């Protein structure tokens, strides 16, 4: 479903963030991208989501070459993915409900249908009681869960999370990973970047070091 073929990415005025990376991911797989900060994890995720374009090589998403897409087609590609950002990127001028509503509005879903789906998403991450709360009043773990609710509300086939547990203590981190696993179990592909080996369990791991893919070992999927 997602295929990287000799993909390199160089940012202007900088070293290569990714060097000749090749791998393939299947629908419904859970994959961890492991590496130190600066190893190219975020770049890899951005290339998958069509936020960045490769300098060389090809990125195929559902057999579509991302580099060849017109800029106007990119937004529609991005809608296939649910994104959870390292810094949440929540909007602090509106309440939880409205934060989760944003992707639905972008997809043109409004009214009672939107309301139903927003509450369902909030329910899945355990924030149903907080729909009227402002994000700033939530704890770090709750904010991350809100970000996940926003990522899944439009029912994407792929969930991409960049260091979702980076700033959380262990309890919260386990909880968040549990939520991701629940999505994996209903057939959503989950791609998570992390620098913490303990997070990965026995899932498949893409290990990055200074922009190079060290291994793409197949791990047994967690039960």
């Amino acid at each position, binding site marked *: 479903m997602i295929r990287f073929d000799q993909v390199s990415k160089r940012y202007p005025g900088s070293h290569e963030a990714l060097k000749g990376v090749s791998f393939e991911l299947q629908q419904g797989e859970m994959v961890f991208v492991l590496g130190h900060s600066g190893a190219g994890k975020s770049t890899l995720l951005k290339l998958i989501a069509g936020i960045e374009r490769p300098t060389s090589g090809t990125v195929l998403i559902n057999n579509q070459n991302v580099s060849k897409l017109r800029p*106007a087609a990119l937004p529609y590609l991005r*809608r296939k993915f649910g994104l959870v950002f390292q810094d949440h990127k929540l909007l602090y*001028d509106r309440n939880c409900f409205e934060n989760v509503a944003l992707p639905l509005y*972008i997809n043109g879903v*409004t009214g009672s249908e939107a309301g139903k789906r927003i509450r369902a998403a909030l329910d899945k991450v355990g924030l149903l009681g907080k729909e009227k709360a402002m994000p700033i009043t939530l704890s770090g773990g709750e904010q991350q869960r809100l970000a996940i609710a926003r990522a899944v509300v439009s029912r994407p086939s792929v969930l991409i999370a960049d260091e979702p547990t980076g700033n959380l203590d262990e309890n919260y981190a386990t909880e968040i990973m549990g939520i991701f696993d629940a999505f994996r179990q209903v057939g959503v592909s989950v791609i998570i970047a992390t620098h913490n080996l303990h997070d990965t369990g026995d899932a498949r791991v893409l290990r990055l070091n200074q922009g190079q893919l060290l291994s793409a070992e197949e791990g047994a999927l967690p039960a």
Partner: protein
Amino acid sequence: MKQWLNQHQQALQIVLTRMRHNLLATLLMFCVMGVTLCLPGILYVIVDNLNRLAGDIKGEPQISLFLKQDIKADTINDLDKKLSLHAAVKTYRFVSKDTAWQDLQATSGTAEITHNLEKNPLPDAYFVTPRNLEPVAIEALQQEMQQWSGVEIAQADANWVKRLYAMLELGKKAILALVLLLGFALIAIIGNTIRLQILTQREEIEVSRLIGATDRFIRRPFLYAGAIYGLGGGLAATLFLASVITLFNSSVTEIAASYGSNFHLALPSLATSLIMIASALSLGWIGSYIAVGRSLSKLN
């Protein structure tokens, strides 16, 4: 189709909510635009009304020859012959003092004045339309006729009409220039307001883009905002203009009445008002479109 309507309704709703939250700022914006649009509007009303007033006056330049009161019939015949033979004269028309007197008495408003006069004060007169309408040629002809015997005054009464028309033309050009300049100003004002709004919503725009919002989706609420500012400004301008005219009218009718006229300033017609509102709306939309386009390409 339903989705399309949904998206527009939703964008409009967002904008209206934002405007309601910043009601004072929004109303001030309407006022700024209203006053700006009102200026050429007032000028237009002045020129339009003068035009109406001048419409009654014939634009054709004429030379009036007022003859001496004690003129003899022979001299009149001589003059008639001279005029019919003169190369520079296109047409001419004789109005005897009696005809003129009857005309004057028939004219409403002057009946009271003429009633009080014991005898006819009007002279016989010729009204001459020259062949060459250049102001210089008319003046030369007028000076020549002034020398003719039996002519009391030769008056080229076309000049002021021409000047009036020239001034009206100037007024129209001034309106055009003012409309262009202020239109540009409006685009700049709205563009800047929208730019500031984009800055305060920068985060939202960035996040929306990351999760798959099209440029059109991002642009839509701002375009609505610009158009609504334009609409509000246009309505405010119409209101201001109507108030100014009403305020002036009480004085204008008073002055006009003292001249025995029932002239008054006409309010701008429905079509004029609608054009003003529609152009304000489009200017708002254009200003907003430019601002959003620039900001979006900067964010890219």
